[in-house]
């Protein structure tokens, strides 16, 4: 079902009356938003009468893309994560209503408030209009991550998240190897990196909710600063250093390599924000380990994304170019694992 078609719009309007607890809902605009290889996002403007959301509402509707990555959560699970994050005080777009009924628009979806700004990494690291105060932004992102990490197992509302059966680093390595065993071409450079990661894997971990894609490109910023942490589809119980390593890793700096915190700020400002809010002391060696893991993980995902193009199932220039990023990821992974 096309979301812009009149039948879908009428069906969605009727559903939103119940979802938002309104008397009436009139949709003025639905536009597909860019980005999202795994989910589709639509900007939705609606006039709402009655209820706690009365007024002109700027919303986002998030639903599945035709071909998703197997490891990502369902929309219902992502909605539960968003609610848990909001309850923990994390700056997120306010989740408003979840629809698991495929009869409404053909796919499950949820609706959240639309936050202002841009998430585009290549803009955030280069364009001064969006930088706000880079020190404050790095500090705030550190604090936000610390708030996410206050969510800890066990949690009834998040019981769909499996607990790791072995230390998280070892579980990750096993997962990447299992996938590589199914892939048609051996990847010795990636295998070298995984072996190094296995030899240096931390034996234990203090488990927290790891966002697992906490990086520039997945949060919104306007001229004043942070407006929302997005993209919760990979979150799971993990080692709290993992998100710090992913955020600081060279492969997520969008070319702004001297600003080690996501290409937007200094590592020390980001870590200081995290330490102040969490009360933890961040071990630089452990972060370095997870930065190395970040390269192995992103290389594996990039092969998978490229394969969606190469297999012919989803011809796409974007996916094709992502597939070719494997080279730089393997090269940096090797540089980090020489001894």
């Amino acid at each position, binding site marked *: 079902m096309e979301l812009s078609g009149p039948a879908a719009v009428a069906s969605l309007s009727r559903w939103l009356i119940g979802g938002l607890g309104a008397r009436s809902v009139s949709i003025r605009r639905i536009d597909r938003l*860019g980005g999202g290889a795994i989910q589709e996002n639509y900007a939705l403007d609606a006039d709402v009468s009655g209820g706690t959301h009365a007024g002109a509402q700027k919303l986002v509707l998030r639903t599945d893309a035709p071909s998703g990555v197997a490891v990502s959560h369902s929309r219902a699970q992502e909605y539960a994560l968003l609610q848990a994050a909001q309850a923990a005080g994390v700056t997120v777009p306010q989740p408003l209503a979840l629809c698991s009924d495929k009869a409404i628009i053909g796919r499950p979806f949820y609706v959240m408030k639309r936050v202002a700004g841009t998430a585009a990494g290549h803009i955030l690291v280069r364009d001064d209009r969006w930088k706000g105060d880079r020190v404050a932004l790095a500090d705030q992102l550190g604090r936000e991550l610390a708030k996410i990490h206050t969510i800890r197992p066990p949690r009834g509302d998040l019981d769909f998240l499996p607990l790791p059966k072995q230390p998280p680093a070892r579980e990750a390595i096993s997962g990447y*190897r299992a996938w*590589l065993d199914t892939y048609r071409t*051996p990847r*010795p*450079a990636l*295998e*070298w990196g*995984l*072996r190094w990661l296995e*030899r240096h894997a931390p034996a234990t971990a203090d488990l927290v909710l790891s966002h697992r894609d906490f990086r520039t490109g997945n949060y919104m910023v306007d001229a004043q600063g942070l407006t929302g942490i997005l993209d919760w589809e990979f979150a799971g119980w993990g080692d709290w250093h993992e998100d710090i390593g992913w955020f600081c890793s060279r492969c997520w700096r969008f*070319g702004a390599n001297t600003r080690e915190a996501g290409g937007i700020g200094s590592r020390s400002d980001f870590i200081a924000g995290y330490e102040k809010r969490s009360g933890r002391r961040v071990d630089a060696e452990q972060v370095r380990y997870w930065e190395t893991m970040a390269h192995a993980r992103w290389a594996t995902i990039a092969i998978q994304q490229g394969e969606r193009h190469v297999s012919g199932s989803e011809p796409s*220039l*974007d996916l*094709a*170019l992502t597939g*070719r*990023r494997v*080279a*730089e990821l*393997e*090269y*940096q992974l*090797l*540089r980090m694992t*020489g001894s």
Partner: protein
Amino acid sequence: MSDRPDAKELLEIAREALANELLPFLPPDKRLAGLMVSSALAMAARGLAATMPPLPDVVIADIRDGRHDSDKVLYEALLAEAKARALISNPKDVDD
């Protein structure tokens, strides 16, 4: 023997035409797609011009079992091969 311009030269002039004659006139929402096309053309041209070192012949299970943990020769060969690929796909990210 191949006719001139050869494949690499064709890609290079196509990219120049894209940059000078098309990109400036693309609407903002198509600019990223234009840049991606330009990037793919540049990558293909670099790939045609490159001489690749051989990928070392190694058994993956041996890497996993730790038989190459101290194998400097293998490491240097993997590094050289990955670097050559990275110089094609994203030379800006390769430090010396």
